């Protein structure tokens, strides 16, 4: 195998980014390899393993886990189309067909190939090693090898759906029939500005520079606007004072869980024998959420400034930005920005002559949603499959990256730190509401006239204002049916329902968009991704799309989620295909119940909550599609295919009542 020198140089350079463990360089090396050779064979796996002093299985585990890595060549131009909810609602399934048609790809052929692969590859079965096509949506390649198309999960730009990637270039607002345009044009929308000015109800803090006229993402522009002044201010403070300011600000994590940031920082014991690390979680991937993308692409220095301040506060001298693999342009922008900051002396040895050293590196993921879970992210950064860790004992603040104290914060959260330094903790706490301070970037997608992002003071707008005022309401002649308020894992809220919050009864439209109220309404503010569904939507279809996402993204480490997520998806698949049975709604709910709260990480809840809430709130739609009588004990000769095909299914009946037999009693 011949490795060209420039590639070798890049590989050696990448390894230096991980002074603690070479293994961490696994993902970067796989990316470099695939960029150069197009795909990753077993031989490449062995080469990389040897380079990093690993066992080859350590690397094979990664290639088969992270969907962005390919073990077969793709077309010369590879098109990734987002399959997930908001894009699907905007026509991404049609877009995929259109792309295939324009590129001369026979999707049917590849679909068949996939189903064969799923049924066990005979050649592989006989060999020592095995791996089936499994998790990946298959890559379909055109006859001439010029194009390939792949359905991928959420590309985190739900507000401009449907979206796609042409090689590394991001494309948004692609019309469902614009296959031809998509594959021929080599342009990027990554830093394209929105024409609309901020809405008057907005309070632009973190998003101040997003879409700003004359704004660029380079450091001069940032410095001219007063950039890095807060950093200078912070370096005149004691680190403990910064932590206190953040505590005083009441800032809650913007990644999804809403954990108080200052409290998290407070868990770190400074001055211990182990180094402290800080990781920026830029693995934005909760469907419906698309805020970090804009910060990274348009205002990277804001994030870097916030990160440096945070590192100084928690005494971290090595930090990583874990950016999702689907943001290759974002990674480049961040790397450029870091180099600029380094050149200005904001990074590196002896920042501002303070004696404080700091290195920040960009680390790219490779298409796995689970890397957003902080301990999964840490495992991934250590060069492993992103299996979340058990807590206890592996709380990141104690046993994080390389078993050292580690802070993992979301992009938006770290940006907020900069503003807390600027306006003081008390000043920041004045924004929003008590216990729900600051601003929140709400990302709206789905069936509204003007989907997009809106930075508002937390709780300053209601759901109704968000939909009807900020987003211009629903499409012509449509009525609101449901809203997922905090990313696709958040429980769905049904229009027309009354929510009892404290002593008040609120309609869906009256719910203020803050952490506590949404929690009290039985859902969550989560990552701020609001997905709006109008009365044209089939709720079983909506849930099926979400189920497919979570089944695809389950890491498979622990039993309930690994088995349950795919089971739920298979049930909704069958129901949609016309094979619904009367017990399906109950089984769906029960399967979800058996996952939530029983798993290693919060993915269990994330994949169970949609099913629990959709079945609970839209039961009639599930029942309407689940007419067949096939409760257990079902005649064993019926397969799921037969259930779909047969108009009715006769099962054993109770001789006395004539109704289907109840499930056999358990002991």
């Amino acid at each position, binding site marked *: 195998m011949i490795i060209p020198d420039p590639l070798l140089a890049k590989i050696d350079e990448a390894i230096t980014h991980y002074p603690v463990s070479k293994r961490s360089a696994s993902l970067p090396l796989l990316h470099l390899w695939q960029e150069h050779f197009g795909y990753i064979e077993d031989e490449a796996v062995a080469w990389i393993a040897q380079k990093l002093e690993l066992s080859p299985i350590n690397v094979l585990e990664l290639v088969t886990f992270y969907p962005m890595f390919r073990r077969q060549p793709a077309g010369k131009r590879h098109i990734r189309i987002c399959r997930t909810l908001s894009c699907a609602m905007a026509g991404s399934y049609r877009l995929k067909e259109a792309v295939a048609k324009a590129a001369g790809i026979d999707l049917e052929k590849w679909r068949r190939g996939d189903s064969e692969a799923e049924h066990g590859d005979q050649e592989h079965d006989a060999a*020592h090693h*095995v791996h089936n096509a499994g998790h990946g949506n298959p890559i379909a390649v055109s006859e001439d090898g010029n194009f390939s198309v792949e359905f991928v999960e959420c590309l985190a730009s739900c507000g401009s759906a449907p979206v796609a990637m042409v090689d590394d270039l991001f494309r948004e607002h692609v019309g469902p029939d614009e296959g031809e345009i998509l594959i021929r044009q080599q342009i990027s929308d990554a830093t394209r500005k929105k024409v609309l000015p901020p809405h008057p109800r907005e309070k632009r803090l973190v998003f101040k520079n997003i879409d700003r006229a004359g704004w660029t993402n380079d450091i001069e522009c940032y410095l001219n606007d007063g950039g890095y002044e807060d950093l200078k201010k912070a370096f005149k403070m004691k680190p403990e004072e910064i932590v206190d300011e953040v505590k005083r600000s009441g800032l809650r994590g913007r990644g999804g869980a809403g954990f108080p940031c200052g409290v998290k920082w407070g868990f770190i014991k400074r001055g211990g024998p182990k180094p402290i690390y800080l990781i920026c979680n830029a693995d934005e991937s909760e469907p419906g959420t698309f805020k970090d993308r804009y910060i990274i692409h348009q205002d990277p220095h804001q994030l870097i400034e916030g990160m440096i301040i945070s590192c100084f506060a928690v005494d971290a001298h090595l930090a990583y930005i874990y950016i999702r693999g689907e943001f290759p342009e974002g990674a480049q922008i961040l790397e450029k920005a870091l180099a600029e900051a380094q050149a200005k002396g904001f990074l590196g040895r002896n920042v501002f002559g303070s004696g404080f050293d700091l290195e920040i590196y960009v680390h790219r993921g490779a298409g796995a949603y689970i890397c957003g879970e902080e301990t999964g992210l840490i495992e991934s950064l250590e060069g492993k499959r992103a299996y979340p860790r058990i807590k206890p004992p592996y709380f990141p603040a104690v046993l994080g990256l390389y078993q050292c104290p580690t802070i993992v914060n979301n992009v938006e959260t770290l940006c907020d730190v900069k503003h807390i330094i600027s306006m003081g903790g008390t000043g920041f706490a004045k924004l929003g509401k008590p216990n729900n301070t600051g601003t929140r970037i709400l990302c709206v997608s789905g069936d509204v006239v003007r989907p997009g992002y809106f930075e508002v003071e937390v709780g300053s707008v209601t759901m109704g204002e968000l939909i009807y005022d900020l987003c211009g309401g629903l499409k012509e002649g449509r009525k609101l049916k449901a809203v997922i308020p905090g990313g696709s894992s958040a429980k769905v809220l049904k229009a027309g329902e009354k929510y009892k919050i404290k002593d008040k009864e609120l309609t869906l439209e009256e719910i203020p968009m803050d952490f506590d109220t949404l929690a009290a309404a039985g859902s969550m503010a989560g990552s701020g991704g609001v997905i709006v569904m109008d009365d044209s939507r089939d709720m079983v279809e909506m849930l099926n799309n979400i189920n497919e996402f979570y089944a695809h993204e389950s890491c498979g480490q622990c039993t309930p989620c690994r088995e349950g997520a795919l089971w739920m998806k298979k049930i909704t698949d069958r129901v949609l295909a016309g094979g619904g049975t009367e017990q399906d709604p109950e089984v769906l709910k029960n399967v979800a119940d058996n996952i939530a709260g029983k798993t290693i990480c919060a993915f269990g809840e994330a994949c169970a909550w949609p099913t629990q809430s959709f079945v609970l709130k839209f039961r009639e739609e599930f029942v309407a599609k689940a007419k067949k009588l096939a409760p257990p004990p079902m005649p064993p000769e019926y397969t799921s295919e037969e259930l779909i095909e047969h108009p009715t299914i006769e099962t054993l009946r109770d001789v006395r009542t004539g109704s289907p037999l109840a499930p056999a009693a358990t002991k």
Partner: protein
Amino acid sequence: MSTEAAAAVQMVNVQIDGVWHQFPKGTRVIEACSQAGKFVPRYCYHAKLSSPGNCRMCLIEMGTPKLTPDRKPVVGADGKPEIAWIPRPQISCAQDVSEGLGVRTDSPMVQECRKGVMEFLLINHPLDCPICDQAGECRLQEFSVEYGQAASRFLEAKVKKPKNVELGPRVTLDAERCILCTRCIRFMQEVARDDVLGIVDRGSFNTIACHPDRILDSNYSLNTVDICPVGALTSTDFRFKMRVWFLKETKTIDVNCGTGSNITVGAREGVIYRITPRENNDVNGVWLPDSHRLNFRYVNDPRRLKQSTVKGQSVDWRTAIAIAAEILKSKSSEQLWLVASGRQTNEELFLTTRLIEALDMQKQHDIVPRTGQADGLLVAADRNPNTSGARLLGLCTTKPGSRFKKLVDGVRSGTIKVIVTLGEDLTRTGLTEADLARLEAIIALDILPNQTTAHATVLLPASAWCEKRGSMINLKGRLQRLNRAVNPPGEARDDWEILRDLVQAVAGSNGLYMIEDVFKAMAAEVPEFAGLSLSRIGDLGIQVIKEKAAPSEEATA
């Protein structure tokens, strides 16, 4: 636990299903439950491996002491702290007990969790129990009966995965049966230190695999089969050979090296089908090398010696012993030599010393050394299982085989005319076949034909290690017991009986009727065995020689 021990180890109070117990600090909750008689089912947890907490079978309810606002425990009416229960179930495999911890192992929530996990584990499982080698010792089967449900609600197509995959020369994978507990992966990383197993693909398609460049060919690979809780990993050697419930299991010890790993022999109707490790934390933990566990086929070799012979003619035992005694008594002591074996049991070695004394051949004996490479785990450099016993009983010097030069010289000079060999091929001592032909007589006790038995004047067919009782001392000085798993073939007899008869024929009656008598006589003479009997050795053995006293170059386990 005695009060002295309690003082040494800090004890904590733990409430398990309403009853308060005390456990030493550092006890895993799952182990504490077991000790309290409340078994918590588990798949991924293994006491000798790290805890990934992935199977979720050991979910229980836990709680910590309820605290007052000033963080003092709230004490209930019974004087014990009240417990604040955590609303979510918790895994019990990754957490140690702590003061005032509360545990519920059988609450409705726990029962629901187990039922749910069992269902999840079975939906994609092939349920091919009738033809599965694990059937009968499968945790999926066992916990299904105990904690599962009878009906299946799964109407979908199962996930297809590779079957009949050779992960290495000795281990076969059925990925559809696998529950992805990762015990095998962790064993290879943490114990065998050969990181070859991993998981490929993702989610429900997760599959155990190797990279083609590094397969599962470690000498410890079959331990993954032992710890696989289901039928995913099976022994290529054992699979489809025998239903496990037909196996008669015998506790004994391995004789392939001086480690003396504890094993279980599984046999049916006189045929051994498999050997598996038996837990002994002072010896082998719960592991066993593949080389050792698969080395049993020779026991059923059709060439096994089954008939006592004199000069090639079949004779009965009485005649064979009598002729052997005659030969020995007819020579002066300097014309005799005895080659003993480090594979003999202590009882056999003891009777051998009686024979040596009776024939006054105190310095004309030795054992054949066997050495190889130690692996730093369980394979010792000394491949004789009982060198320590031979040394203790005076059958060899500290350097086994050091007297063989004298033997060879004596045979070649014509001084030595008769050799007794107890299970050793004399060509291993440096003698050639021509030397053997020059001897007046060879009295050979053995189980399989070799160059020596071909020249034997008197041939005494004996028993293999798994066909006899007795004791051995491993390299760390631990006295352990062999037990009979199968009967010796044909007319072959127990070695100790042959030796006893020979000693009797040479020196007269000695009052030894049972092997227990031999041990008793030995215990009366050897201080290390004082107060012991075969039964007192127990299944796990007893330390009889201080570990430091054992020669370090061989003690590697």
